[in-house]
């Protein structure tokens, strides 16, 4: 019998600009909140998995596993997990596997990223390291550039417009308005998106998630540990999946599709014994507006070519049939890359428990899903969460 995994507690710093704060300082805060929320003492932690992508560039800091554990006040085996923007979800998956395999009862997971201490060109360069250094980066491709290629190819194959994409940014901003942890608590309209400074055709500034600083953490425990210690941990991680694809975008069989997400989702669904029709709401990796479209199609909620109008038609809004990115997503909540997967877990856990500012939108919900992608989805991690009735 495989041990099941419960989310005992979650924490995250507000996302935004705090260029002076080191990653270790931010992670210390997120972990502190997670321990408090879990009501679990630090000394019972068996292992730490910490996500971080660009700390060797942004802070000249390698070897961050023990650094993160120490900041959290934990003496335990500790590993930095790096999988670009999917680093934290990969850390979560490492923790889930540890508990399921019986090696650990209590795992601290999370991640942190400090980005705004860099200039925009420097940050752009650091992020580009997630692409193929030989066959993409040397042509000057940036992350907005790579996703622009996917968007332009999507338009060519399936149709769609900049305006369709703009509705996604408008929705995610609207969802973040009451979220005090979000970087942008402001409404925008379609015109704002369409008239913003161009970054990379077809993306203006509002099609792109921002550079952000922040950290996230969670205490995961075995079902057995939760019972023995009488923990209030109603959210269970019932499904976990991860997959990969060809590294360079040019080598993918189809440029506007993300089979790594499709395969990761298939694993997570089978693991949880559910299908997309059972999911009540989700957080997806909307690093750029098109990314939300590609995610919803790969995860099985829409056929290829059909998710482009989901936000415009209101389906993925707070009051729609499938609320997507109730936290504000990467677009409005912010995207400190190594922390993002942990922030998705934190927000979904609160939404399911009923203590999130947007919980009212999903009052009777039981099943949620998180999709965290690395690079142009050369890697992807999907988790399914379920809450006790």
């Amino acid at each position, binding site marked *: 019998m495989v041990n099941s995994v419960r989310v005992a507690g979650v924490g995250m710093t507000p996302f935004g600009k705090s260029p002076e704060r080191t990653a270790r300082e931010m992670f210390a805060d997120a972990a502190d909140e997670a321990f408090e929320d879990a009501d679990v003492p630090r000394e019972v932690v068996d292992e730490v998995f910490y996500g971080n992508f660009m700390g060797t560039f942004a802070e000249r800091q390698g070897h961050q596993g023990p650094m993160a554990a120490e900041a959290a006040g934990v003496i335990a085996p500790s590993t930095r997990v790096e999988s670009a923007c999917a680093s934290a979800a990969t850390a979560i998956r490492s923790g889930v596997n540890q508990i399921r395999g019986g090696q650990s009862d209590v795992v601290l997971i999370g991640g942190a990223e400090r980005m705004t201490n860099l200039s*925009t*060109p*420097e940050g*752009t*360069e650091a992020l*580009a390291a997630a692409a193929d*250094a*030989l*066959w*993409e*980066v*040397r*042509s*000057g*491709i*940036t992350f*907005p*550039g790579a996703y*622009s*290629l*996917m968007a*332009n*190819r999507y338009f*060519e194959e399936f149709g769609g417009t900049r305006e369709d994409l703009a509705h996604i940014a408008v929705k995610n901003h609207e969802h973040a308005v009451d979220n005090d942890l979000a970087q942008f608590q402001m409404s925008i309209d379609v015109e704002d998106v369409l008239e913003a*400074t*161009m*970054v*990379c*055709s*077809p993306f203006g500034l509002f099609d792109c998630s921002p550079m952000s600083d922040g950290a996230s953490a969670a205490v995961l425990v075995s079902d057995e540990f939760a019972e023995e210690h009488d923990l209030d941990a109603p959210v269970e991680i019932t499904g976990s999946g991860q997959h990969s694809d*060809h590294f*360079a*975008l*040019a*080598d993918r069989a189809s*440029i506007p599709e993300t089979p790594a997400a499709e395969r990761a989702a298939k694993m997570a669904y089978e693991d949880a014994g559910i299908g997309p029709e059972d999911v009540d709401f989700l957080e997806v990796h909307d690093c750029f507006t098109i990314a939300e479209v590609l995610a919803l199609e790969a995860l099985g909620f829409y056929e290829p070519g059909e998710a482009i109008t989901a936000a415009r038609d209101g389906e993925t809004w707070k009051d729609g049939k499938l609320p997507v990115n109730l936290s504000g997503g990467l677009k409005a909540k912010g995207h400190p890359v190594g922390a993002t997967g942990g922030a998705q877990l934190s927000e979904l856990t609160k939404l399911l428990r009923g203590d999130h500012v947007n919980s009212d939108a999903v009052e009777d919900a039981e099943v949620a899903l998180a999709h965290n992608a690395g690079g142009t989805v050369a890697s992807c991690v999907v988790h399914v969460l379920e809450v006790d009735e």
Partner: protein
Amino acid sequence: MSNGDEQRDSGYDDFLDAIEDGEPYYLESPSGNGWLPPRIVDPRTGERDLEEADLPETGEVVAYTTHYVAPPDFADDAPYVVAIVEFGPVRVTGQLRDTDPDDMEIGQEVEIGVDRKESDDERLVVFYPV
């Protein structure tokens, strides 16, 4: 990130040399899949016997985008257009030259070449309209 002018990257620099020598190639597996070097295995099939094959003289643009925001080592090149071009069984990423992005179309035929960046004189793969 460059290692300086003298330090070569095997595979990558060999490919650029071959373009400059007028004999561009790609690596083909027995199944007919095409890849760029360095590789010893077809990642789609696991076949290990890859052989050099002549790159078709012209390719077709499958996607392109204009970059307005550039990393520091492309600062003097911006704005620039990056494209993915399909040469038969292999796709190559590079910058479009001698083309107004407003006149570009997916499907346009291009030839491959090598140019140097404004920003730091490093070589890069480029495409010229046919």
